[in-house]
């Protein structure tokens, strides 16, 4: 009972923080739509661009795949980036040590305080992105409850990655540039799950190690290719999907515990 109350309080605190950052969300909102609209006509056009020719029209099929690709990335962004900034703020203000007085494990306090807020923020920003892109070109997605399966796995993987970054933050503190770069790589490599461009073999192979690739592949299977979500193997199959997500979650918990241990031993949990 005490655990549930503590958990509920952390979620509530996270939502209050999210509400206080509503202006920030509004500022970030157009960023994703602009990227979809801008990147759509440029994919695979390198040779044409080098010779100065480019057709700036948007293709419905490509754009639908890009919206599908960006939506889970928005969740990653909201979970990872905002958790990092909040944690860094607590370290700098000296309030992080108080987290260790909670009956909950510190990693759970950090993760639970963000995940519900990140989910609601993603719904809002993804809906806005969908609406803005729809003005320019039709988006065709097959809406089905089966998409909740990859969505759940994506959330688990995002929590894991955010905890890995959080663990590194406890030790190295100001790692925002690395944080941003890691997210860009997660986004770029996950593109290999979509038929947007032909990627080299090494890229396709490496992309499976990234937390978003199989999630995006599964979402594509369900919402665009009209395939079953239940296939076990292949890109977006249930086995790789949940193996990667669970591995990231476990790695995240481990990294957070390790980071907290190092910071506590150095006495730098709440100071530099």
């Amino acid at each position: 009972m005490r655990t549930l109350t503590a958990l509920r309080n952390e979620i509530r605190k996270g939502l209050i923080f999210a509400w206080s950052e509503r202006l920030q969300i509004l500022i970030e909102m157009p960023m994703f739509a602009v990227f979809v609209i801008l990147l759509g006509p440029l994919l695979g056009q390198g040779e044409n661009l080098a010779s100065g020719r480019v057709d700036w029209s948007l293709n419905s099929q490509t754009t639908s795949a890009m919206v599908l690709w960006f939506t889970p990335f928005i969740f990653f962004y909201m979970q990872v980036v905002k958790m990092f900034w909040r944690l860094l703020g607590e370290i700098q203000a000296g309030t992080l040590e108080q987290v260790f007085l909670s009956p909950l494990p510190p990693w759970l306090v950090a993760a639970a305080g963000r995940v519900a807020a990140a989910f609601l923020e993603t719904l809002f920003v993804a809906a806005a992105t969908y609406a803005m892109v729809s003005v320019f070109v039709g988006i065709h997605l097959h809406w089905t409850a089966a998409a909740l399966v990859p969505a759940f796995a994506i959330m688990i993987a995002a929590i894991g990655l955010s905890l890995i970054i959080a663990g590194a933050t406890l030790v190295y503190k100001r790692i925002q540039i690395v944080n941003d770069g890691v997210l860009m790589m997660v986004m770029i490599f996950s593109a290999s799950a979509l038929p947007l461009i032909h990627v080299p073999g090494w890229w396709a192979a490496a992309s499976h190690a990234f937390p978003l690739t199989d999630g995006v592949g599964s979402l594509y299977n369900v919402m665009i290719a009209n395939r079953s979500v239940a296939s076990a193997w292949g890109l977006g199959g249930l086995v790789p999907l949940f193996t990667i997500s669970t591995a990231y979650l476990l790695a995240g918990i481990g990294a957070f515990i390790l980071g907290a241990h190092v910071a506590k031993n150095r006495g730098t949990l709440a100071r530099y």
Partner: protein
Amino acid sequence: MSTITLQTRLARAELDKGLRLMWRRRALVVAAAIVYGLTYLGISLFIGGGHLVKDLMVRTLPGLLAVLVASTAAVEGCAGISEEINGGTLEQTRLSPASPQLQMLGRMTALAIEGLAVAAALGVVFVFGAGLDVNPHPEALIPAVLTVLDALGYGLIMTALVVRVASIGAISHVGTMAIMAFGGTLVPISVFPHGMQIFARFIPTTQGVESINALVAGRGLAATWSDGTLPWLLVHTAALLAAGFSLYAINIRHAHREGGLRAR
């Protein structure tokens, strides 16, 4: 001690501090360089449809280098001030005889060195690693210097806003993304539709990247002056630097008055 000597010494003290801090987190600077390099490689493969289009990369590489300087100035500048606000040490800086602008000059110089070091390393890696056929032209140094100053002006404005605006993290993210999208890192600005080109000219570093590309392509300095690219870059840079220094001084004064120099 003359005023000029004192001011120089004060600015140099800030520069020394910035460089010492950079050296302390050198592992992160190297990690950031690797991550940016991989991101650029990913974007290039993306746009090239799975392979590198070297002719295109020759024209987008200056954009990447400009983003690196701008992003280092904005992200590290914001993080430094926000850390001092949260840690309560920004108030102590006001005990110094140096003006806020002078302190910021020292900090920004250190960030410029950090950004340029990363940019130079990545430039060398891509030119020699990917075998890009770049014809370095001495005249290109003029827009290159102005581009760095333009990027620092952008970083300065973002840093100045930290003192006043709580949502600066989001604003600087959107700003850096805009520089990446419209500043010539994805594609040369010249391939944008006309309306988008006009918009892009207001984005920091865009004009500089366009001037550098023109000079590397063999067009002379006179041509970039007569087509308006270089004059616009000069005006843009001067405006951003002036706005940045003024905004920082105004915001520090405001925070001093309202008690905003410590955590809100």
